[in-house]
């Protein structure tokens, strides 16, 4: 029994660390979906953009990625607001299909634009922190950068949750999510609030991208897999619930790690999407909460 216990615990802890990044990415998507009903197919491309921003800061100016992520988040916030004001706003009243096409188009432009600027070659950052492992007892070890990114993510995720639930702006967001026409009758500037929400959603992705860069590597197509993962997270967390998405992200990380440990890594994605389909068909309101944003 004990022989199995430690590896399982190790896998669960690693899953929580990975899952915290998933959570942040998923929260961004949930916020955007919750407030605007936009399925953001460019989510992964924005993540990639944030990674490149952090990389450029590191490569050209020597800024540590664990500081650079703040700049990436700020950049993504601006990109998000602009993206909403210049593009998405114009088709807000049209069919959902147009939003899908538009965000897909943005995604293609971003990944090909980055490829033009930086080439298709991959990049990685090597910082001393990557070589540090924290040993808890004899059996458990955690890689320091993942622990650091977990700590940052936890603080920001809780902050984001409180902001949406408690602040005046957050209340406006939730009002729009409930009924945008009623919200505008109550004196809420719907367009401005939605633009800020899109910016905020992308800022979360910006943070995640900055934190992901040191433990991963970078090429223009790196974000694609995360678009798919955030769909799974949003569905699992209950279409647009940001705390649901946070929990779902962590759960997804743990499930992936346990699947890898017991069945093998090739099953991890299968299980991801099996969960996706099961939740969609059996409990479309999600497992971890309902929409409140």
């Amino acid at each position: 029994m004990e022989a199995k216990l430690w590896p399982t615990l190790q896998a669960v802890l690693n899953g929580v660390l990975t899952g915290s990044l998933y959570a942040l990415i998923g929260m961004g998507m949930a916020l955007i979906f919750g407030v605007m009903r936009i399925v953001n197919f460019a989510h992964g491309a924005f993540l990639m953009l944030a990674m490149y921003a952090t990389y450029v800061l590191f490569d050209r100016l020597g800024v540590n990625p664990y500081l650079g992520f703040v700049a990436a988040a700020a950049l993504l916030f601006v990109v998000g607001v602009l993206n909403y004001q210049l593009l998405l706003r114009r088709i807000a009243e049209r069919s959902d299909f147009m939003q899908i096409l538009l965000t897909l188009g943005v995604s293609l432009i971003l990944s090909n634009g980055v490829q033009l600027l930086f080439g298709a070659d991959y990049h990685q950052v090597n910082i001393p922190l990557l070589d540090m492992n924290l040993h808890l007892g004899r059996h458990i070890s955690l890689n320091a950068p993942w622990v650091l990114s977990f700590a940052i993510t936890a603080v920001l995720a809780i902050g984001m949750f409180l902001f949406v639930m408690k602040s005046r702006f957050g209340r406006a967001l939730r009002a729009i999510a409930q009924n945008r026409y009623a919200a505008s009758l109550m004196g809420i500037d719907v367009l401005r609030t939605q633009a800020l929400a899109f910016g905020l959603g992308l800022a979360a992705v910006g943070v995640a991208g900055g934190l992901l860069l040191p433990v991963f590597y970078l090429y223009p197509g790196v974000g694609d897999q995360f678009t798919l993962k955030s769909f799974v997270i949003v569905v699992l967390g209950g279409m647009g619930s940001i705390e649901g998405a946070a929990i779902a992200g962590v759960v997804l990380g743990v499930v992936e790690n346990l699947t890898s440990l017991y069945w093998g890594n090739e099953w991890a994605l299968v299980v991801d999407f099996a969960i996706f389909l099961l939740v969609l068909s059996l409990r479309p309101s999600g497992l971890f909460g309902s929409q409140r944003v």
Partner: protein
Amino acid sequence: MRPRWLVHAFLVVLFVGAACKGSRPEEARSFRIGVITSLTGPAAAFGQAHKNGYAVALAELNARGGVLGKPIEVLYYDDQSKPDQAVQGVAKLVDQDHVPIILGAFSSENTRAIVPAVIQKQVPLIMPTATAENVMESGSPWIFRICAGSDTYAGATVDFLTHNGAPKTLAIVYENTNFGQANAKSMKTVATAAGMTVVDEEAYQASSPDYKALLQRVAAKEPEVVYFASYLLDATTLLRQSEQVGLSPKYITSAGTGFAAAEFPTEKGAGKYAEYTFSVAQWLPTAKWPGSKEFDDAFTKLTGAHPAYHAAEAYAALIVAADAINRAKSDQPAAIADAIRKTQMTTPFGPVQFDAKGQNAHPVLVTQVQGAQYKLVWPADVAEVKPVPTPAWSERH
């Protein structure tokens, strides 16, 4: 409405297609050779190595007057590291550009995908780097391979191991496409035949940030040897995370590729994590074949870094193609394929001669990263240095 719209679009495509065909000059001023490789996507580092290898060969051949009195022009098709794109590349190169011969692709997955298309279009294909044995199983007279395959990789690795410590247990960790699957299969067969026990086989999806659970599984089996079949990006992550979960086999061996890329032992790759890893290699800059040094010099001058074997294979593929075209004295695919079959030449990559199945018998070496450089450790009679068993992670820093 929609059907009519589709018909219009179809007509436009037909018309444009015909116009392109019509504009083709009767007597082209250059001799076109098609290349399919991965210039973008996760395998871009290897595609770039290919491109540089071809570029060196191209400069050399054209300086000598090209083929059939014309300069050679290489038309690249970027398969974006995706098999379906590689297949489109065959159609584009043959139908639109009318190349009589294709070289490529990079990965085993993409090469396997283009074999049927090439056979159908009836143009010869020279494969520079695909190691999976199933790329050759069609037995078609249009298919030729310059490099050694996964069976030879496994054979050389096991041969090396039996003469160095003779470890008994082995785990295989492989990326889950054609390259990894083929090399895992070959290794399982060869290692078992040599009396070793394969204690674990783990497939994984490349381009994932997290392999820790998989490596935990391997560590639990405590194998003496781990054999990795990985591309570059995953190789780095795998090694870094091996340290974290305490996977410390006595021999970290590999089916080349990621573990043999020029970037791998540098800061751009796995850096210090690459140290002590073993890899098979098809060629090294220190190879004794005539022209090896000149190729190394020309490549280094072009790119600022020494070539790995992927570039040498691409270089050799173009040299062999040009030689065959000159001997065929024709720009017809069938004549060129016949000439390739009769190839008998020494290239900087080694002697090239194809057997009845189109395979070139090429020897495989084993290298170890020592001091951030690939050092030849096997076969023993040509070894540069003595192999050092991979030390435990805890004994390194």
